[in-house]
């Protein structure tokens, strides 16, 4: 290794100066084009991701409007005065109280007698075990009815409870004000009941509490953990224990609504499957429970038993198969007010395809029966049996409730269209149906006594509601497969471009880039224009078509740009051991994302893969023939391994990792503040991190000039200030100094944070841009060679003794010694990560700072390891950096779940939300590790290379493209898997968040590598060339 070199520098002639200027212009132009090429790749990806997401993430705007008791959606007929909870808000109520029993996963065929069918001759374990619902409906139709109750997928309890209380359809993202929490923030039955002063008691599954926090009677409510599917009885016995005492007459004043949620049937299904004796036993137990409730019920109380979804043959649910969506609904009242429009309907349907009702239909039905306003967002319609009257012909009542519901839906649609600025033409069929329904209503009113007119009116309202629901389902609950496939094709195409650019090009990439760029840009523009033109001809979304045509045009044209150099391309197939290992790790991760377990435990897998790389790099270093390389390489490998394992102790567990994970990121698992001891971590970082960086710089003799100022002074100072900031923050959280006002504490720490950011971005970038290469040029008096001459003492006498060595006074000669020559490029560029680390550390919580500092040390270890093993041109460095970035994302207190975004980081240097700064701060906090690693990528190619290495820019571009390759592969994999598993039970909880993370990280890393990293390379290389000159190519 050569740390110092001596050069002699002749005075530059005018000709040389002109040459140098020309080379400088050439370099800058080439650099700008390389940067532009990466921006082009970014645009390809952005378009591809836009196409995919516009087909995949269908969002529904959550309107926060509430229905009011005193404000019916339409003026009421027959002089009914709205606004009384006693009589009924919009319509006379039928019941004062209700007992709602939710039997999780009560499939419809569990409740009706078994009828032999061809191919299914004998009853199963789940048949005929729960006869009470059927019996009562047949024996006393005015007291009870039983109907199939169809769920809207996804058939998971949480989504179902939303539907059952709000009357809306589930979508992937309910884009509301409340991103992180699970509480329902739109109008719903529970909130209406609570606001009307009704006492709501809940017993059973605790999911209700995360949806409706604080709405239940605290003294009577008992909730139970819903996740232990192995336990069939605790929840059910608990509900029984607390339910029956409430039904005693003495307790009737204490409650108005009881919600009992039994989980035993669901758990029996999950554990054993439906066709198992345990299921029979469970259903028999339920049967007995219902008989006891019926016995205890009084006249003014309605009893509802329902399932929230069904179960498939294995007893699981979540998807949209018939078995999963077909639940049962049974209503019972001792007063006897139910009817059937046809005597043949007395017997409950034989199977769930006959006369089903939707689960959202419960919402208006229950609201009107209890005299509540129908929740504002409801899309369900009143259930016929509940309103048609004992005689089965009260079509007037039915038409009235149907009219109320239709008007409520109509009002909701109008508000939604206004909020979303939807063109009314998309709902034109409903407009027509709405007019028909209004006309029919007027006609029925004028022939008030004629039952048939009321029936027609009811039918026309129903037609409107059905069509409206169909359109909403279309808009919200359907994936646009065309758009998704276009996105996937574009993503794969872009991946192809990157892999060719990164791994196939063997010559100078930077020289090839201008041609690729011009082809790519031309293709993109042509594609966009022709797509727009085609879109206006065809009846297809013009924006999507032009986006797709643009990205495909761009990709094909860029690929065509490779044609002239096709002879020098090689198949991008890993040929080396390291290339194979990198490919294997990436592939393993990609495949793993198809399984929810691997997605959930991604942090542990990354630790495993990074340790694999660490161990193999340790082995490889031990095999180096050169002793320095061997020792220093092994030392760095050990440090890399230790840092990786040490940082793995910083954990923030996601819900699905429980109970096999313990969070250490905050003071406790239920807190989001740091523990007292954790505020020490930033001080340790301030002490050790600059020292570690300094050690590396000193070792290659580059700790000179700006490096001393930045690493030795400014960075250390900034880190100490950061540490002080977090102490003040903890003091504020923990009330350590009650005598100091909160106001003082918070404004002091905000000023400190702003100062740190100023140091990082103003002073730091200033230093980076204007720093001279980190060299020390020393003039040394060279020990001149002693000139010795031999000459005889007496020249006239040939035999005279010869006197040798006459020391002539040495001629004065000086020599330039350049300290830090060997790593000029690397250390000069690495100032940039050193600048960014300060800002990135500031916005991390104390535990995250420790982790991110270890990440920085691992990056330095990696750079030294790559040098010791001479792997600068292997994909090893860029891929390990990508693994590091992904790994430390988890170690800085994040997970692939929306709930772990640390929104409070927006307030570190600011008091209020300020655009665009607040989102940028959250991004810096969330993706700090990705950003740091992305900025470090060019250092791989520049670390310890000769200052005048030709083709360096091309190598940097290759390293950056390889780095992007990792993220692009993960994005392709997660996107394809999310599309494939779009009806998977875990889509919302696991696959979609991971897919979103992958695409966001891909775009962010592309932007950062292009603008910050490749952009930053310019100053560093120009500054080095200022001393050594540009390489002649």
């Amino acid at each position, binding site marked *: 290794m050569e740390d110092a070199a001596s050069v002699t520098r002749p005075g530059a002639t005018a000709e040389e100066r002109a040459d140098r200027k020309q080379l400088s212009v050439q370099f800058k132009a080439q650099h700008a084009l390389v940067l532009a090429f990466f921006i082009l790749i970014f645009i390809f990806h952005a378009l591809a991701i836009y196409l995919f997401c516009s087909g995949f993430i269908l969002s529904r705007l959550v309107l926060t409007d509430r229905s009011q008791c005193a404000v019916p959606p339409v003026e009421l007929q027959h002089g009914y005065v709205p606004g009384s909870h006693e009589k009924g808000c919009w319509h006379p109520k039928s019941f004062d109280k209700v007992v709602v029993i939710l039997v999780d996963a009560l499939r419809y065929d569990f409740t009706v007698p078994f009828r032999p069918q061809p191919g299914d001759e004998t009853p199963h374990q789940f048949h005929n075990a729960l006869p009470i619902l059927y019996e009562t409906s047949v024996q006393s139709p005015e007291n009870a009815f039983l109907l199939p109750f169809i769920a809207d997928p996804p058939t998971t309890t949480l989504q179902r409870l939303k539907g059952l209380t709000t009357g809306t359809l589930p979508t992937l993202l309910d884009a509301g004000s409340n991103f992180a929490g699970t509480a329902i923030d739109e109008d719903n039955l529970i909130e209406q009941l609570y606001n009307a002063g009704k006492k709501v008691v809940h017993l059973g599954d605790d999911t209700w509490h995360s949806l409706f926090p604080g709405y239940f009677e605290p003294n009577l409510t008992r909730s139970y953990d819903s996740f232990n599917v192995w336990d069939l009885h605790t929840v059910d016995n608990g509900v029984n224990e607390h339910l029956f005492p409430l039904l005693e007459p003495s307790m009737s004043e204490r409650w108005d609504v009881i919600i009992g949620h039994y989980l035993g049937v669901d758990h029996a299904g999950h554990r054993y499957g439906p066709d198992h004796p345990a299921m029979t036993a469970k259903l028999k137990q339920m049967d007995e429970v219902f008989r006891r409730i019926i016995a205890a019920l009084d006249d003014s109380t309605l009893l509802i038993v329902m399932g929230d979804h069904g179960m498939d043959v294995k007893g699981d649910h979540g998807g949209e198969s018939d078995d999963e969506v077909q639940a049962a609904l049974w209503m019972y009242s001792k007063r006897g007010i139910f009817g059937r429009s046809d005597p043949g309907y007395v017997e409950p349907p034989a199977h769930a395809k006959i006369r089903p009702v939707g689960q959202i239909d419960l919402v208006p039905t229950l609201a009107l029966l209890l005299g509540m306003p129908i929740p504002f967002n409801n899309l369900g319609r009143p259930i016929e049996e509940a309103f048609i009257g004992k005689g089965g012909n009260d079509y007037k009542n039915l038409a009235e409730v149907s009219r109320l519901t239709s008007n409520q839906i109509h009002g909701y649609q109008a508000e939604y269209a206004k909020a979303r600025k939807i063109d009314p033409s998309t709902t034109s069929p409903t407009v027509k149906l709405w007019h028909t329904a209004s006309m029919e209503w007027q006609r029925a009113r004028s022939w008030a006594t004629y039952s048939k007119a009321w029936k027609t009116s009811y039918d026309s309202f129903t037609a409107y509601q059905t069509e409206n629901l169909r359109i909403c389902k279309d808009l919200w609950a359907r994936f646009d497969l065309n758009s998704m496939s276009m996105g996937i094709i574009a993503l794969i195409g872009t991946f192809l471009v990157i892999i060719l650019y990164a791994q196939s090009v063997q010559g100078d990439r930077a020289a090839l880039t201008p041609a690729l760029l011009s082809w790519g840009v031309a293709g993109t523009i042509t594609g966009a224009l022709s797509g727009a033109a085609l879109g206006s001809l065809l009846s297809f979304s013009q924006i999507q078509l032009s986006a797709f045509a643009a990205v495909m045009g761009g990709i094909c044209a860029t690929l065509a740009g490779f044609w002239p150099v096709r002879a020098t391309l090689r198949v991008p197939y890993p040929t080396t051991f390291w290339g194979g290992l990198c490919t294997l790790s990436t592939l393993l991760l990609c495949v793993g994302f198809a399984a*929810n377990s691997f997605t*959930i435990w991604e942090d542990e897998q990354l630790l495993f893969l990074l340790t694999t790389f660490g161990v193999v790099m340790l082995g490889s*270093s031990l*095999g180096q023939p050169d002793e320095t390389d061997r020792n220093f390489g092994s030392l760095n490998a050990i440090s890399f391994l230790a840092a990786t*394992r040490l940082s793995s102790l910083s954990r923030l567990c996601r819900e699905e990792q429980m109970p096999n994970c313990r969070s250490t990121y905050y003071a406790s698992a239920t807190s989001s503040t740091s523990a007292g001891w954790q505020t020490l971590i930033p001080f340790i970082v301030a002490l050790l991190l600059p020292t570690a960086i300094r050690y590396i710089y000193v070792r290659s003799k580059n700790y000179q000039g700006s490096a001393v100022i930045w690493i030795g002074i400014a960075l250390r100072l900034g880190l100490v200030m950061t540490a002080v900031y977090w102490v003040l923050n903890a003091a504020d959280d923990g009330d350590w100094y009650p005598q100091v006002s909160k106001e003082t504490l918070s404004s002091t720490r905000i000023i400190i944070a702003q100062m740190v950011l100023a140091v990082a971005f103003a002073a730091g970038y200033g230093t980076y841009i204007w720093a001279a290469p980190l060299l020390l040029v020393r003039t040394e008096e060279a020990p001149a060679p002693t000139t010795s001459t031999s000459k005889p003492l007496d020249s006239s006498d040939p035999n005279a003794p010869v006197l040798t060595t006459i020391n002539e006074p040495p001629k004065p000669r000086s020599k330039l010694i350049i300290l830090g020559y*060997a790593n000029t490029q690397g250390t000069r560029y690495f100032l940039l990560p050193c600048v960014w680390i300060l800002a990135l550390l500031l916005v991390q919580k104390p535990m995250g700072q420790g982790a991110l500092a270890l990440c920085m040390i691992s990056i330095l270890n990696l750079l030294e390891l790559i040098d*010791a093993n001479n792997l600068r041109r292997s994909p090893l460095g860029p891929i390990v950096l990508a693994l590091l970035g992904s790994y430390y994302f988890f170690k800085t207190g994040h997970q692939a779940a929306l709930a772990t975004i640390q929104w409070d980081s927006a307030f570190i240097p600011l008091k209020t939300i300020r655009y665009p700064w607040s989102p940028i701060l959250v991004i810096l906090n969330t993706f700090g590790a990705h950003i740091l690693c992305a900025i470090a990528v060019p250092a791989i190619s520049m670390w310890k290379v000769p200052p005048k290495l030709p083709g360096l820019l091309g190598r940097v571009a290759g390293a950056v493209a390889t780095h992007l390759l990792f993220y692009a592969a993960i994005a392709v994999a997660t996107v394809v898997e999310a599309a494939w598993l779009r009806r998977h039970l875990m889509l919302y909880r696991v696959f979609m968040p991971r897919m979103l993370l992958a695409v966001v990280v891909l775009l962010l890393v592309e932007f950062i590598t292009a603008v910050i990293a490749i952009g930053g390379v310019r100053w560093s290389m120009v500054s080095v060339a200022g001393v050594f000159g540009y390489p002649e190519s």
Partner: protein
Amino acid sequence: MSSSTANAKPAAAAPNEKPVEILQNQASQFYANLHPVLLLSILLVSFRSLVQDPVSTLLGLAPTIAVVQAVYCVLCLPSTGQPAASPPKPGQKKKAAKPAQDLWAKAVPAFLSLVLTLTLSAPTLYIIVILFGGPLTTHQPQTLLLALHLALLTTPQLYYTHGLDTRIWLKIASLQLPIDELFGMTLGACLGSWIGAIPIPLDWDREWQKWPVTIVIGLYLGAVVGKLAGGYVFKGAKIKIS
């Protein structure tokens, strides 16, 4: 700066860089072939109890495995310093050494190999298992026993044939040693354990997914496959790491 060119090879070549040959007598050949069968059958027989109670099963198996390995070393392998067993020429008479003395001369290095395995390899492998993400605060007996079994399957044969020659061990660490039965077994065991860790996170709720059952199974299968592949398929090949 390091150069990867081959000129750095020291003039005095490492003493034993050729693939190790199994001794040529009948007992050696027989036991060398029996060895993988023994390992596999031990795994098969104890599988159920391994799943039920990994700690006591692994503890109980350790002496047996140590003996199996020691016998393998003594019977089949040339010990340190012994010249690589050259195939006996057809007419050559075997040197008639006193059998007891011969056995003693081999049993001592075998015993030393086991001692080194216990004191040197097992702690090192324990640290490596922890580095890979093995549990730090819980399951210590399981992890220690896993490290012990890893050590028992990977290193005694290497200590026995190569001793503590630093140059050889550096080559082993950097995978530069030519592959033979022994090295193949070591590599296979490591790779098998690596693969064995993969099913742990799956949510299948199987008893056998518990720590460290999958790794032990991967370890034994890997060792057997590695030994056979190293002995027959890849013999003499070298892994080109850079």
